[in-house]
């Protein structure tokens, strides 16, 4: 079985203390839409942090589905938000560009 580089969990960022400097210097965090957090796999500091924040472990596929749901909703909202006579450039200026898909890594 191939080694995984990352593990995923869902945890709500409560603010101060959610990620400490002492944790950030040991492992790399990557936050994604839907309160999905990516941290290194097979790493005791990552495991300690997940326990601290009461993270709910997710497989990569499960995490991907959560992220996809948020992005799909944002894309649908963007697609549906139109003003009569507005050019694509004007829409980009008004709303920002259309949200892009995010692909999580194993």
């Amino acid at each position: 079985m191939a080694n995984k580089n990352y593990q995923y969990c869902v945890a709500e960022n409560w603010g101060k203390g959610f990620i400490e400097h002492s944790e950030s210097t040991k492992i790399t965090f990557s936050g994604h839409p839907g309160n999905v957090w990516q941290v290194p796999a097979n790493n005791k500091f990552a495991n300690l942090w997940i326990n601290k924040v009461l993270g709910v472990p997710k497989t990569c596929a499960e995490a991907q589905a959560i992220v996809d749901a948020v992005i799909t909703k944002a894309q649908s909202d963007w697609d549906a938000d139109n003003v009569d006579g507005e050019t694509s450039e004007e829409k980009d200026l008004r709303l920002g560009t259309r949200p892009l898909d995010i692909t999580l890594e194993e």
Partner: protein
Amino acid sequence: MATYREINGGSIQNRATNPSNVKEGEVWYNEDTGKLRYGKFTEGSPTSASWATGGNLNLGRFALGGAGTQTAALAFAGLDPNYYYGETESYNGSSWTEVNDTNTDRADVGSNGTQTSALLYGGRKSPGGVQTTENESWNGSNWTEVGDLNTARQSLAGAGADNTAAVAFGGFSPAGPTSGSHGETEIFNGSSWSEVADLNQVRNDLAGTGIYTSALAVGGIVGGQPPSSALTETWNGSSWTEVGDLNTNRRDLGITGSQPNNTAAIVFGGQIGFNGPKTAIVESWNGSSWTEIVDLNTSRYDLAGGGTNTAGIAFAGRDPNPTTSTEEFSAATTGVDTITATSIETS
């Protein structure tokens, strides 16, 4: 009995020297010393830069203004994405508190200053997202309208130590006699703005830091056309000079510098290309070149920042939805943990 290879999935590597980037638990054979070594976790050594979470804003938004320091910051105005805000929040190093609103709700603004002395200028406002010249001054308690910019524009940048002196530059206006990207540079003297020079490259959605006589203009979209830019220009109080480019071109990035000059700064986040992915990449400016350092914990763009290049703060933005998240930057932390190469003792 299982072999090491069967347990670990690989054999121990022979290395001429210890690896430079040791991982905790990593094992190797040092051919030079003839000893097995492993990565050992050790308490109490200096380490490099990091980002930690700070208190969450009360209102998620992007394209807002920011001022102040890591322990005394101010967030104001912004967007969500069809509603323009005037909400102002004050940060004490751990939590944000709502204070008095701006007079005009708006987004994609220029801003500078401190938690008790800030300026908010330009941007776009409701109805219709029309560009504005309006300028407001914050005295720690209230926003007061003061002298307007000469050129209405959104997505501009600014620099200045407080509400008595500032420089505003760049921006965009989609219609009218001054439509397109702007290079106009205006200086504020505490009561009125004067146009004094132009950026070398007209652009919008850029970042700025410094003071009115020594500022930095970074990234953005040149001429309103894709892709985004890596360009950096320094301001000496009378003219702009092109200097070293960012490693990663981007728009709608955050920035904080080391006042009172343009010789030290960090940029963070942003959107790569014109409509590319959001990024967590952070780069540090030493007065002549940019170096990539530790990433934000959450990639985002259209965010705001404050503080210095060694103790910065990033807040709000879009990921792609409006976020309340705050992150605090520390350039070097002492008394924390590191991993070192250590000999394995054998009996």
